[in-house]
């Protein structure tokens, strides 16, 4: 059985301006030790998928409308508070996209680092501090001993991000949900953090759900990738297939927008139009209004992920019918 199995997850936000279908029927699984990448449009529900698994969706306005997220036999969306406490923050931990909102500005970095250890493991403050120091060094904070008692605002953006990474890894989780963990980091530190994640995977068999928009990082790190658009998965495949033989028109358009592959000086290719307003229900394929290959029938009926090759799923009806 997979380490994490998410089935038909729906997370909506009920706000004054309507119902936002942030995550609208998402199913996937993460095997032990593997790295699954989630990429996709800004606002497509990547972070909310992570929050839902971690039980961190603010309710209200958020609500888990349906689905399950079974981690090692326990449904995280429905288990008892005691079970939740034993798992979240210990066996499943998350690195957040925004280090400043998840680090408490009024608490010293040392206090925040040792907190998960004091809660989940029976160890002394001294031992916890030693582990914290070791972890801070592992994420590449120089002079860790001199800085561990500082406050978050005394650290640069990238250093805060690494403190966050250290708090998530310090409990040696079985599953790490990493939401844009390296976007605030320069490429040399980024390479170092990705190497640290790989090492923890080798040594502890840690699985990683890696949320990012950086396709280059995905290329080097992930075993499989799934692409989200407007709250749904539109394509999922092993990394090589997704890069070398993408099928869904959104995946193709996304790939064509990568600046590294385009000539300097000219305008960058973009996807025309805007992402759909998630508070207005759309019939058919949510990408149709922006899709070069769309025809009238794309904006009607329902869209389902269907296999197109071994381990390769995609949701474009025209691709499924062999028209494009």
């Amino acid at each position, binding site marked *: 059985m997979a380490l994490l199995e998410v089935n038909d997850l729906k997370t909506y936000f009920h706000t004054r301006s309507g119902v936002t279908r942030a995550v609208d029927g998402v199913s996937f699984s993460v095997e032990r030790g593997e790295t699954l990448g989630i990429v996709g449009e800004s606002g497509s529900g990547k972070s909310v998928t992570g929050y839902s698994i971690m039980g961190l969706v603010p309710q209200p306005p958020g609500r888990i409308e349906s689905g399950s997220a079974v981690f090692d036999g326990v449904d995280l969306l429905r288990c008892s508070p005691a079970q939740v406490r034993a798992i979240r923050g210990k066996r499943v931990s998350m690195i957040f996209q925004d280090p400043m909102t998840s680090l408490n500005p009024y608490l010293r970095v040392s206090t925040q680092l040792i907190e998960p250890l004091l809660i989940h493991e029976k160890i002394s403050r001294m031992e916890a501090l030693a582990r914290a120091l070791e972890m801070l060094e592992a994420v590449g904070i120089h002079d860790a001993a001199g800085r561990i008692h500082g406050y978050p605002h005394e650290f640069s953006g990238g250093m805060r991000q690494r403190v966050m990474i250290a708090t998530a890894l310090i409990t040696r989780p079985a599953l790490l949900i990493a939401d844009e963990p390296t976007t605030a980091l320069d*490429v040399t530190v980024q390479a170092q953090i990705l190497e640290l994640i790989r090492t923890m995977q080798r040594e502890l068999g840690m699985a990683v759900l890696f949320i990012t928009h950086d396709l280059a990082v995905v290329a*080097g790190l992930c075993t499989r990738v799934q692409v989200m658009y407007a709250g749904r998965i539109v394509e999922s495949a092993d990394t090589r297939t997704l890069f070398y033989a993408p099928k869904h028109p959104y995946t193709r358009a996304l790939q064509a927008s990568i600046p590294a592959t385009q000539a300097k000086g000219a305008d960058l290719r973009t996807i025309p139009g805007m992402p759909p307003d998630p508070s207005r229900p759309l019939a058919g394929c949510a990408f149709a209004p922006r899709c070069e290959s769309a025809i009238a029938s794309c904006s009607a009926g329902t869209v389902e992920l269907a296999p197109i090759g071994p381990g390769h799923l995609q949701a474009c009806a025209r691709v499924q019918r062999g028209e494009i």
Partner: protein
Amino acid sequence: MPDNILELRDVKTHFTVRSGLLRRREVGAVKAVDGVTLSLARGEVLGLVGESGCGKSTLARTILSLIPISAGTVVLNGRNLSQASSEEIAASRRDLQMVFQDPYASLNPRMSVFAALSEPLRVHGLCPPNETPERVARLLETVGLPTNAMRKYPHEFSGGQRQRIAIARALAVGPKVIVADEPVSALDVSIQAQILNLLSQLRRDMGLSLIFIAHDLSVVKHVSDRIAVMYLGRIVELGAAAEVIDTPAHPYTRALVSAIPRPDPDSERTRQRIVLAGDPPSPMNPPAGCAFHPRCAFAVPQCQAAVPALEPFRGREVACIRVSEI
């Protein structure tokens, strides 16, 4: 009218550091920015890159007078901001705006998007009240957000959506210079491309100048005319964007460029990176001479003797005494 819209001369920004748990003693100074001289021409995009913690955001905040400068001058359009009164600094915001690295921290959570975008228009008297909703709607469209976003609050948006609100806020006053600290790192590639195209259009049409801080070197190369590479509070290489990235000269720039990940799984699995030996140095206690020498494959004993100056080298400037031999 001066040729350069912005001039930095030997800018230094130091922080005092305290240590200890209770009575925190002063234990030294972080020389976050330690002697930066740079100019920004009208309509120019200057990319600023460098290792995390090397002082990019501190330099940006110093330019905006958000933190006190320790030494040196910042001259905006001929006016010296380093000696300006708080009224003069407030007035300079009409010309000089910043997009912060952390949009979560820079947007007031209790202000609706409409309030956040209309405030700068009101403060600088740029738009009659009856036209404000229309202006705000157009600003939102410019950054690719639906106009009904104006009734919402920051927490109702995703990371990338908030970053676009922050960009719209900086654009609201029609500034001449924007200092953008990682403005597109939180965005997916297609919206990132839209924002970058928008910035180049504003620069063509309105002569906007930009200091563009980012760690994604392919993005920096694409948008910048020149690139400045920082290491531990100083500029170590400065030159035309494509040259700096395609034929890096300073050993640090070479290591940086070799670490750029490529969106190609096969080449990612096989390629060679220059792995930097050792830890990044402590800005509290920088190595003697060239701060990069402990991690540099080309270092010789003289590298420890003095801090190398930025000197002309093949059409650019490089701070390395061995650059012509390596």
